[in-house]
């Protein structure tokens, strides 16, 4: 089973904002700095970083990892905004899988302090001593494949394999076998049967990744 390649560090930070419904409650941002690979130049985020950011935003939205209601403090007035910043430190292909995995692990780690609205002053009061974990409803796991010449499929491609591939495919599944996202940006075609193969592989991968993550989270020292 190929390991997750490419290390990521992510830490969602939070702010309470006055807002009305319709504002983004989670703002993901994927950064591919020049230090992770000589492919990337310094400057504004390139194509790949922007595509990855949008992909993560879609995953959060579609798989409903967190519900908007959970982030709400006082409806119509105050809610949490989660800033998810993912930085790639070492790029060796398959960035989307690693981003999703890091995002999920970090969201499971987030602790939000209790906020209450003082009736007299109508200001928010934050109680840093009482923190609770986020309510993570689903656990989406991404599985990427590299396609070669319409026939060969490789799971979890490395940087070299990605460069030589004629197409890529990313499947995001959650634990009940529901598809959150299917990302196939052009490239060589795939038959329906091959696609089904990919889905079943994604289901197996989900189990493996979920066990690994649960182990890690359990082994973490409580703060």
């Amino acid at each position: 089973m190929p390991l997750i390649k490419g290390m990521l560090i992510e830490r969602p930070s939070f702010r309470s904002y006055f807002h009305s419904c319709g504002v983004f409650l989670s703002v993901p941002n994927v950064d591919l700095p020049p230090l992770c690979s000589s492919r990337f130049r310094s400057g504004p985020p390139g194509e790949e970083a922007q595509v990855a950011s949008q992909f993560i935003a879609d995953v959060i939205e579609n798989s409903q990892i967190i519900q908007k209601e959970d982030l709400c403090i006082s409806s119509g007035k105050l809610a949490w905004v989660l800033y998810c910043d993912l930085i790639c430190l070492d790029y060796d292909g398959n960035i989307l899988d690693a981003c999703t995995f890091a995002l999920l692990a970090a969201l499971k780690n987030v602790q939000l302090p209790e906020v209450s609205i003082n009736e007299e002053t109508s200001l928010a009061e934050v109680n840093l001593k009482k923190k609770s974990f986020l309510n993570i409803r689903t656990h989406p796991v991404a599985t990427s494949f590299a396609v070669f010449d319409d026939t060969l499929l490789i799971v979890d491609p490395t940087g070299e394999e990605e460069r030589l591939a004629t197409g890529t495919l990313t499947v995001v599944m959650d634990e009940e076998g529901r598809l959150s996202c299917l990302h196939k940006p052009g490239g060589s075609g795939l038959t329906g049967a091959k696609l089904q193969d990919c889905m079943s592989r994604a289901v197996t991968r989900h189990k493996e990744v979920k066990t690994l993550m649960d182990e890690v989270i359990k082994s973490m020292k409580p703060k």
Partner: protein
Amino acid sequence: MAGLELLSDQGYRVDGRRAGELRKIQARMGVFAQADGSAYIEQGNTKALAVVYGPHEIRGSRSRALPDRALVNCQYSSATFSTGERKRRPHGDRKSCEMGLQLRQTFEAAILTQLHPRSQIDIYVQVLQADGGTYAACVNAATLAVLDAGIPMRDFVCACSAGFVDGTALADLSHVEEAAGGPQLALALLPASGQIALLEMDARLHEDHLEWVLEAAAQAARDVHTLLDRVVRQHVHEASILLGD
């Protein structure tokens, strides 16, 4: 008065250290596979990562190539989550550019650039958690990364910050001590020759006190050198075991 909080009567600082005591330093070399050289350092709660690519051909315009030596390019980036408040711009802002320039000037003094004419050496530094002494942590990490890349240097470059409170010079300032607003000095030293690669001071300091602060910073830098030397030897030892010598 800020000075009363930073140094107690018994001579202990906010985090329980003595005046000349450094924070715990942990460092690792060769952490990444993609880069030519990489290193990770933790100085107390400050965490910095340095990655080196090169020497390689000049990127962009060939006209920037220097005929007799290598071009050193440094970029400093502070992660959005590195400080208590989320940073809007991780790089490209004024402070990052200034830091990048300072790092470049520091390393141009240390790297033997004459050995690689017409080429470029990229040093990227990423601060993952900032708790004071970020310049020092960056320089120390970058030194290890350059050594990991096998780029020849005149000497180690070891850096440390120092401040002055209540008539005592403090070495290795944490964020709390930096934010108090007293004089701060950042020093980058080449330990073997005792030469100063970079010296920068903020806020007012009486010239009589400068010597003490400078000595505190230099001593701290020499302590850092002992540690980094040990890290490098350990790394080389491990690498040679893997190669099966």
